[in-house]
């Protein structure tokens, strides 16, 4: 009983209680595998999300579509089938749809 009043005895009890929680657990390796599985899942997900449409990418897509339409209209305007094949301009008028007039007013 005298021994129990001793500070080092109390310290030992605390030490033992804490040490008990340090004991390695069984199945730690499977836990590591579980963590890695989740990590790989997240990595794949982040890669996929990185490829999805961002505002910057949407702007670039929009810009490239506009440029393509613009070039198409320009070429179309330069080589009108009515001029090259000597068709009646009026008969092919429906092709224009006023796009060229809007983008290239000449």
């Amino acid at each position, binding site marked *: 009983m005298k021994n129990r*009043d001793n*500070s080092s005895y109390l310290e030992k009890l605390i030490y033992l*209680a804490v040490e*008990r929680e340090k004991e390695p657990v069984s199945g730690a390796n499977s836990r*590591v595998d579980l963590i890695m599985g*989740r*990590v790989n899942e997240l*990595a794949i997900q982040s890669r996929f999300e990185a490829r999805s449409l961002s505002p910057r990418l949407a702007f670039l897509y929009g810009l490239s579509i506009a440029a393509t339409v613009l070039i198409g209209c320009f070429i179309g305007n330069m080589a009108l089938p009515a001029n090259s094949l000597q068709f009646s301009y009026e008969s092919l008028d429906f092709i224009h749809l006023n796009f060229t007039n809007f983008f290239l007013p000449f």
Partner: protein
Amino acid sequence: MKDLDKVIERILVGETELFRLLVDCYHHKVFVLIRGFVHQEQDAEDLTQETFINAFVSLGSFKGKAEFSTWLYRIAVNTTYSFLRKSQREKMSPFLASENGKENEKEKGKSPYQQTSERQINEFIYKEIDRLPNNQRIAFVLSRVDGMSQKEIAKVMGVSVSAVDSLVQRAKRKLKEKLKLIIDEK
């Protein structure tokens, strides 16, 4: 440290499998640290897993100013505290692994009286650790992680080394006082 930085760089570039090196290296330490707060093996395992996933998600924010372990332990403490706040486990009495049907090897040679007595004392100690003021509790639990210097604890807690020393001493003194009372009662 430089090797670790290179490993982290490579993980960030996309070599995700290298993260296993970090998990292998720190898994047990993080588990011990978290178990010091929650005491239950299952919860500690789940929180260890959550800690590593949180670390992976925010690995890009690791600038290498502090050591990786310091950064990781801080995530572990934050993850544990948010869990404790959420589940209000701080007020619940902890259970030992043996109470969940797992008999400890060390207990096999002891009489049932000895086992119960030791278990009660351990349970009492864990309860008193939970009752310590937060900063004392964190300092005390961190000081029990193997290989963790007071300097590292100070970095994790964002306080001075002398403050850590004082917090650990106060925590120990308080625990001894409480323990002495219960032993005297017996």
